[in-house]
């Protein structure tokens, strides 16, 4: 961009110099004008040719420089894009890794927690079941035993209990 500005500034200076020469020639006395018509004509033509040449050179030079600059900029941009794309890809890869690792950790934790909960639930259910089973057994025993004992054994137990009560001075 700076180069373009420099070229344009150079071109402006050159054009200004040419304009000054033309003005100085035009301001000569009238009598000389007629004498120099042929000369002026020649000079103007030469100047015009020279100007055309210079301008053409400058335009060519400017075109080349512009093209180079643009190519350089495009190349820079391309490189920048590539670098950015690479960085982005790396970042995405890292993020993916982090997310996967985080997910794996969460899943593992959840599995452990679920296993623990399941174990606790299982243990509690087993305990409840045991309590219920033992209560049923106790109830069944208490219910069945008096019927299994015959009357004679009952009477014997009662008399023995009375004797024990007497010995222990409950009576």
């Amino acid at each position: 961009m700076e180069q373009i500005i420099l070229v344009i500034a150079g071109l402006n200076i050159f054009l200004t110099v040419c304009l000054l020469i033309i003005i100085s020639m035009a301001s000569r006395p009238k009598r000389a004008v007629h004498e120099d018509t042929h000369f002026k004509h020649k000079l103007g033509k030469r100047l015009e040719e020279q100007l055309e040449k210079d301008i053409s050179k400058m335009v060519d030079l400017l075109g080349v420089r512009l093209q180079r600059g643009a190519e350089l900029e495009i190349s820079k941009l391309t490189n920048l894009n590539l670098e950015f794309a690479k960085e982005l890809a790396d970042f995405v890869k890292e993020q993916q890794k982090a997310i996967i690792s985080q997910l794996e950790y969460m899943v593992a934790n959840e599995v452990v927690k679920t296993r623990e909960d399941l174990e606790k639930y299982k243990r509690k259910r087993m305990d409840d079941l045991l309590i219920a089973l033992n209560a049923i057994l106790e109830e069944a025993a208490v219910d069945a035993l008096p019927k299994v004992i015959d009357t004679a054994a009952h009477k014997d137990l009662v008399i023995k209990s009375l004797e024990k009560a007497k010995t222990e001075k409950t009576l």
Partner: protein
Amino acid sequence: MAPEKTKPTPLSTFISKIMTVSDRSGFEGDIDIAQKAIWDLKMGFLSAKITDSVSAQFMDLVLEEEKSGALTMENSIQEEFLSTLKKSLRKIPEIKLTLAFEPSRDFVAKLADWVSLNLQKHLLLDIFVKPEIIGGLLVEYNGKYKDYSMLPQVKAVIAKHHLTFK
């Protein structure tokens, strides 16, 4: 010289034969009927006033008392007799026995004999039946309570052999 034994009266014999609290309640019911009957019929022996209304044992006691001359046709004497009987019944101490089975009358008599012989006291048996004590008995006497049943032993055995998953 040994002290002379008091000759048993029909009343003392009657009272000594009462074995249970339930028996006493029955006789108290008889006494209530007799007390009412005294004033329903102005004159006559008590036995005549309560015929078919009371238990045979109570009637026997009344007849015995009338035969001995202690119970006359006078209403006030009859009233006094019944009142004394009621008070005497209330004075008999009790022993509460809880059994695992329904005892027969014979077994209750055996228990009453055992108590009388071993404790040298006439106690009224207050009998309850609780099959869940399995066997033996629970005793409550004179403010003391003791479990002589099989339930604690059976519970201990069951607890020892409690099912376990461990």
